[in-house]
């Protein structure tokens, strides 16, 4: 039987219809879409057993407890440790990035030696030999960005065994407050018992965005017993959520504090401090409401209202701080402390509390005495030749990027013949060093945090490594202990782990307990002797402002911070009103823009401290009059493609003033000239 035309067509149509009745075309279509999404460059998931381990975040000084989710041996996600008093399950965006930072492209992969501008890999043994040799013959100094870890204690202790007192913390409110408090004759670390306060007035400190124990501040705010008031120049995240925002010119929060103190004194409030009557007369005569209104921009009625509300509150708490966490002076802190003293809430539930210090490295100076060392002063002396330093060690800090007067910092660096950077990432400071000795990421090392600044309780937390170092990194304090041994200097400990064990027993905690994520918490406050206060410091608020527009730098954790540049994961969190491509926006309100003749999107230069900052104008009503707000964290020249070349660095145009009476360098009251670019 032959196949005729009709039969052939019947076969074809029948076949086609028949195929449709089978799953073949549908399965094929489905497979095609799967195959077309299965490319070798799309990573495959590596399955494994899920688990959670505890850690402590060291990306900022807030010391949040983390719960690291692991798959097999790999950490994958960082969430908050719900039993940790400083995080209670919450984490800030920076902490949330911590796992991914293990593989940040900018990580230093191993020890490097600078050979005439070219970095060459060396071994750790060689690194130790080089550093020991340099230290045995020269004078050493150290800059640390680790405010509350024992690593700084090891470094400071090592330095003093070498006969050097040149240990400096990166400038912060923690340092200025400690210095101010000890000058007043106070003892202990200043803390704020927000959890038990029924009226929190934050003068400048951006407590819910970036300041102090930021996650714990937010937790305390969420369960607040009363009002939260924020006084600052910009409507930050804090201003968005609190009960009231009081706009005040940048860096004038101390003046506002004295304006409130004026009313408290008028109401008959007092404090038992040496020189009180002098202080009282000074405040009543110099910080009259009219003067304070002119300086701060806060209306007289509002100042009076704040004073009345503070007095009416059962347990008021006044927090003071720089709008961006650094650059404040003794004046700001003295004024804030005075306000707390007048309110009688020092060492009281819900007020300003004083927390004890713990030290286990015998040769290390106390925190209070270290806070007297002013980094800016040191760098100035190095530049002028008053101080000769042969070896500078920089740990967990990026002074080349994150200090005002960058040119002076660079000059000081160039005058120091040998610099060592203990940096996890290739930052602006590391690339200027002669040796880069990578510190492990905090998830790869033992580390601790003792009572982070701002905390209202003594809190000690310790973390063990979650993963082996993914690069050739070595714990800095362990390396320092090795170097000390080779120099025949005895710090009293064999390993950094032993230091942490000693600290655990010094605070009365079980080391294994701490490693499992439990923390040592204590409500012990330090009793005070007679305090004193001089009016010389208080006069600093009366210095007339210079010409120009007020500059309000804004710190937000999703923009990174002074040690960690904007992280790859945070790039998409940055708003399009903050960064457009490579142009950073500066924020001004309509009135200020009109006054300065600026329009939306205009390219402008901010001139200050002899340098220029370039940005574009974004008009927003979140900034007060005559003020220009600029986010911190941009203008990086090192790091990686996620941050390099984006925007400009506002530190360039911050002007530094030396404060009378304390000698502190202050840069929270900068003013700039705005010109169209």
């Amino acid at each position, binding site marked *: 039987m032959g196949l005729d035309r009709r039969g052939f067509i019947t076969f074809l149509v029948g076949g086609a219809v028949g195929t449709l009745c089978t799953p073949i075309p549908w399965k094929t279509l489905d497979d095609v879409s799967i195959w077309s*999404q299965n490319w070798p460059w799309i*990573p495959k998931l*590596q399955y494994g057993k899920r688990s959670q381990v505890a850690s402590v975040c060291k990306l900022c000084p807030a010391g949040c407890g983390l719960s690291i989710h692991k798959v097999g041996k790999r950490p994958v996600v960082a969430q*908050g440790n719900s039993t940790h008093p400083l995080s209670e399950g919450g984490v800030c965006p920076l902490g949330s*990035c911590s796992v991914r930072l293990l593989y940040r492209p900018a990580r230093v992969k191993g020890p490097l030696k600078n050979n005439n501008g070219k970095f060459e890999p060396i071994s750790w043994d060689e690194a130790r030999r080089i550093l020991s040799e340099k230290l045995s013959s020269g004078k050493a100094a150290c800059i640390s960005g680790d405010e509350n870890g024992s690593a700084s204690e090891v470094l400071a202790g090592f330095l003093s065994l070498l006969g050097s007192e040149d240990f400096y913390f990166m400038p912060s409110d923690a340092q200025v407050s400690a210095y101010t408090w000890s000058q007043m004759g106070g003892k202990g670390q200043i803390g704020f018992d927000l959890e038990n306060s029924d009226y929190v007035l934050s003068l400048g400190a951006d407590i819910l965005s970036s300041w102090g124990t930021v996650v714990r501040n*937010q937790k305390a705010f969420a369960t607040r017993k009363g009002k939260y008031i924020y006084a600052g120049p910009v*409507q930050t995240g804090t201003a*968005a959520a609190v009960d009231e925002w009081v706009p005040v010119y940048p860096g004038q929060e101390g003046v506002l504090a004295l304006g409130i103190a004026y009313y408290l004194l008028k109401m008959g409030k007092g404090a038992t401090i040496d020189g009180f009557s002098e202080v009282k007369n000074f405040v009543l005569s110099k910080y009259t409401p009219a003067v304070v209104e002119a300086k701060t921009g806060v209306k007289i009625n509002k100042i009076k209202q704040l004073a009345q509300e503070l007095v009416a509150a059962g347990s008021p708490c006044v927090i003071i701080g720089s709008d961006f966490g650094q650059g404040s002076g003794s004046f700001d802190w003295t004024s804030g402390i005075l306000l707390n003293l007048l309110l009688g809430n020092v060492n009281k539930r819900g007020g300003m509390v004083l927390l004890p210090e713990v030290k286990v490295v015998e040769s290390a100076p106390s925190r209070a005495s270290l806070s007297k060392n002013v980094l800016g002063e040191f760098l100035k002396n190095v530049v002028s030749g008053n101080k000769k330093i042969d070896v500078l060690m920089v740990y967990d800090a990026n002074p080349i990027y994150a200090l005002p007067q960058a040119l002076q910092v660079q000059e000081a660096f160039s005058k120091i013949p040998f610099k060592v950077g203990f940096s996890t990432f290739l930052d602006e400071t590391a690339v200027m060093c002669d040796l880069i000795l990578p510190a492990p990421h905090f998830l790869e090392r033992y580390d601790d945090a003792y009572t982070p600044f701002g905390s209202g309780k003594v809190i000690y937390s310790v973390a063990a490594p979650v993963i082996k170092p993914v690069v050739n990194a070595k714990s800095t304090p362990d390396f320092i202990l090795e170097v000390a041994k080779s120099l025949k200097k005895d710090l009293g400990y064999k390993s950094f782990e032993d230091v942490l064990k000693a600290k655990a027993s010094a605070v009365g905690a079980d080391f294994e307990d701490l490693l499992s994520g439990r923390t040592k918490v204590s409500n012990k406050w330090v009793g005070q002797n007679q305090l004193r206060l001089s009016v010389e410091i208080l006069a600093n608020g009366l210095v007339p402002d210079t010409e120009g527009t007020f500059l309000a730098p804004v710190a937000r954790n999703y923009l990174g911070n002074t040690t960690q540049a904007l992280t790859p*994961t945070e*790039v998409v969190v940055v708003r399009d009103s903050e960064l457009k491509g490579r142009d950073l926006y500066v924020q001004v309100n309509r009135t200020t823009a009109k006054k300065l003749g600026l329009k939306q999107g205009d390219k402008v230069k901010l001139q200050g401290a002899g340098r220029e900052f370039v940005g574009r104008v974004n008009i927003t009503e979140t900034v007060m009059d005559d003020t220009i707000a600029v986010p911190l964290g941009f203008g990086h020249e090192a790091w990686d493609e996620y941050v390099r070349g984006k925007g400009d660095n506002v530190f360039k145009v911050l002007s530094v003033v030396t404060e009378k009476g304390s000698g502190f360098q202050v840069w929270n009251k900068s003013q700039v000239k705005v010109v169209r670019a």
Partner: protein
Amino acid sequence: MEHKEFKVKWGMVIDIDKCTGCGACMVACQAENNIAPMQDGSDKTMTLTWMLVYELSNGKPFPDHEIAYLPRPCMQCGKPSCSTVCPVVATTKDEEGGIVSQIYPRCIGCRYCMAACPYHARYFNWYDPKWPKGLDKTLNISASPRPRGVVEKCTFCHHRFMEAKEKARYEGKDPLKLPEDAYIPACAEICPTGAIVFGDLNNPEHKVAKLAKSKYAFRLLERLGTDPQVYYYSKREWVRRLADNYLSTEKTKGE
């Protein structure tokens, strides 16, 4: 399309008055759901942000100006606009719990769903994800990495729901009666102020069920009829007023 009712309806109540706009939810979401980092985050038409924090303004000049932040996940609409337009059934609302699914291997990248979604909650992979060397080792086992040409969106961390159900079954408990916090998405877990509350809207024992009934609770574009499972909460009238298109003569919900 037929509208399904579920015994369990997972939902959120986001307290805008508590949100500080810190962005922790956004970052936690990126890590949990394996979203690759991008070099340029400014062009928001190209970024992938299943959770996105918007800045709200009351529109008044300084000093009367106020701001608020609004975190926006997928609304998991009761009557989703996206699933009805999908030509390949890549997005459906058919599972107990009421989460709108997104089935990547089925997606053909036509982006009808993106056009249909009134909340801009859906994102398109314009490029293949780029994982810097080693970063793929931090991939969570929760979500397969998506290639170029696929639409994706927030799934209320659906994998966590699956795990919670599995755990309940293993412990001999009813997987449809999960207790509060047995299942919670990454954003809600991490939120430092606890602004994001998550739970079963149909379970009176869960906090969300009560919060969603508050007079200050509202949903975005409520009168569009999408019936979102994400509620917001604010005592500020101007915030609630921004959530819908009100006529000038109309009163804001909750007033």
